[in-house]
């Protein structure tokens, strides 16, 4: 069986610890262990360092991957942004010999080497392929059949090695959400970006044009909550709703949960145990319904 190191990512550890708590409890219940990636830095995030200094982006991501390689572990993440960075750097460095040599010269100064022996895995892939959908289905103690859920896969979940493979992970995500027993509601804008990266260029456009458009459609679908699989998207949907209300008087009131949190509740873990009340979107109003079965 493959052994995994988890890169939790900056957003989860500092701003959304409930996602980490839910993931740890969920994996415990499923009997699947992961190790924290010791000495990890930011992945680094793809919107600043990758745009301003691509060499640093490659080098820091390669360092994180080398930490897993040195321990002979596969690298796993619960963040689409981390996945995008690590996946792209891993694949690029495996294929581009001269770039890999250059980056390894930099890593040599800190006694590290990128070998290209590790694969980068998103948690939805690990849950599907290593844990198994049957095992998850058998572990569901609290089917959430009274919950109408909209899904936002997030742009970077479509990152893949081949064109044919581009929607494999979003489909796995749908299957995982369905295992919790919820009613999955289609709203037609699933593939639309949440607008988080657009904040770099135009905050108003990110909020009013992108986020509000998406939230409007979700609200019209009369769902109880939105489920995401990326902490960056979660921040955009949660803090973005606060900003839309304060700056533009647009109130959507859509609760936002990460996949791991939804699954943890379905596996019988209490909302209080994983700190669901710490969310900045109105998750409180669905907690009673989450735990009603």
């Amino acid at each position, binding site marked *: 069986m493959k052994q995994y190191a988890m890169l939790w990512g900056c957003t989860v*550890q*500092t701003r959304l*610890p*409930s996602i980490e708590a839910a993931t*740890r409890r969920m994996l415990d219940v499923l009997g699947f262990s992961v190790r924290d990636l010791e*000495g990890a830095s*930011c992945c680094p995030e793809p919107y600043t360092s990758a745009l301003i*200094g691509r060499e640093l982006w490659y080098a820091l991501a390669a360092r994180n991957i080398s930490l897993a390689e040195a321990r002979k572990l596969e690298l796993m993440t619960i963040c689409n942004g981390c996945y995008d960075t690590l996946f792209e750097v891993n694949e690029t460095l495996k294929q581009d010999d001269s770039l890999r040599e250059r980056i390894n010269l930099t890593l040599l*100064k*800190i006694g590290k080497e990128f070998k290209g022996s590790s694969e980068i895995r998103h948690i939805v892939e690990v849950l599907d392929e290593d844990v198994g959908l049957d095992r998850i289905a058998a572990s569901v103690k609290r089917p959430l059949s009274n919950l109408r859920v909209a899904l936002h896969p997030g742009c970077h979940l479509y990152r893949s090695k081949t064109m044919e493979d581009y929607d494999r992970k979003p489909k796995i995500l749908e299957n995982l959400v369905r295992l919790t027993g919820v009613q999955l509601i289609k709203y037609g804008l699933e593939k639309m970006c949440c607008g988080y990266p657009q904040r770099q260029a135009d905050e108003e456009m990110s909020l009013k044009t992108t986020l509000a458009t998406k939230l409007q459609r979700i609200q019209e679908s009369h769902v109880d909550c939105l489920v995401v699989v990326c902490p960056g998207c979660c921040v955009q949907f949660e803090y973005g709703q606060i900003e839309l209300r304060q700056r533009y008087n647009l109130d959507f009131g859509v609760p936002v949960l990460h996949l791991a949190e939804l699954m943890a509740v379905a596996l019988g873990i209490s909302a209080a145990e994983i700190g669901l009340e710490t969310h900045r979107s109105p998750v409180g109003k669905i907690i009673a319904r989450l735990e009603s079965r």
Partner: protein
Amino acid sequence: MNEEITAKLKEHLKEAFIEAVAPREGRLTVELSKECLLQAAEYLCREYDARLVTISATDLGLDIQLLYHFSIPKLLVNLKTIAPKEDLRIVSLTPSIFGANWIEREIHDLFGVEFEGHPDPRRLILSYEWPRDNTPLKGLRKGLASDFQKPTMENLLSTGQIFPMSLMAKRQRVEMKIPEVLPTTIANPEALDEVQTVVKGVGFDRRVGYDWKTKKMRY
């Protein structure tokens, strides 16, 4: 000859020597800190009979880059140094190499670089009525990162993570019975040192204008 001059300048300048690049046959660019510019220039003139061809200046946004072009038979050696816009003082070569005289005066007029020790620092090409604080080829001090990106960069370079670990987050983590702090660069000084070595190794700190002392951008 390239290797010989590089090795000797490296030995002569010690820590002031930053790097040497030979882009093609007959060209050598040696980057050094501005404090040792005079020492390097005098060394080239004394040991290799070098002749100062000219000096060129470029506004890099945060710094003024100065290239001192020296001619040695079959080789052009460029001494490259940086004058940060916060402190545009640099030693004048004119007392040692008189050919630098008018070039330094021109760069002073256009970029505001103060050549310390220049024997005749009068204006050369700007008229005497031209405002003292207006240097036509020197732009505002600005770097690559936008205001929105600065906190992200500052956190990444100072802690290895892009968000600070707040007391509230720590308290929430304890209440959720997960580790108060993960074993990342936040809790591991050796790992952070590795990250910062990588940052310096690829020149990212200089590229974005990060000040290691204040842990802030210079703009």
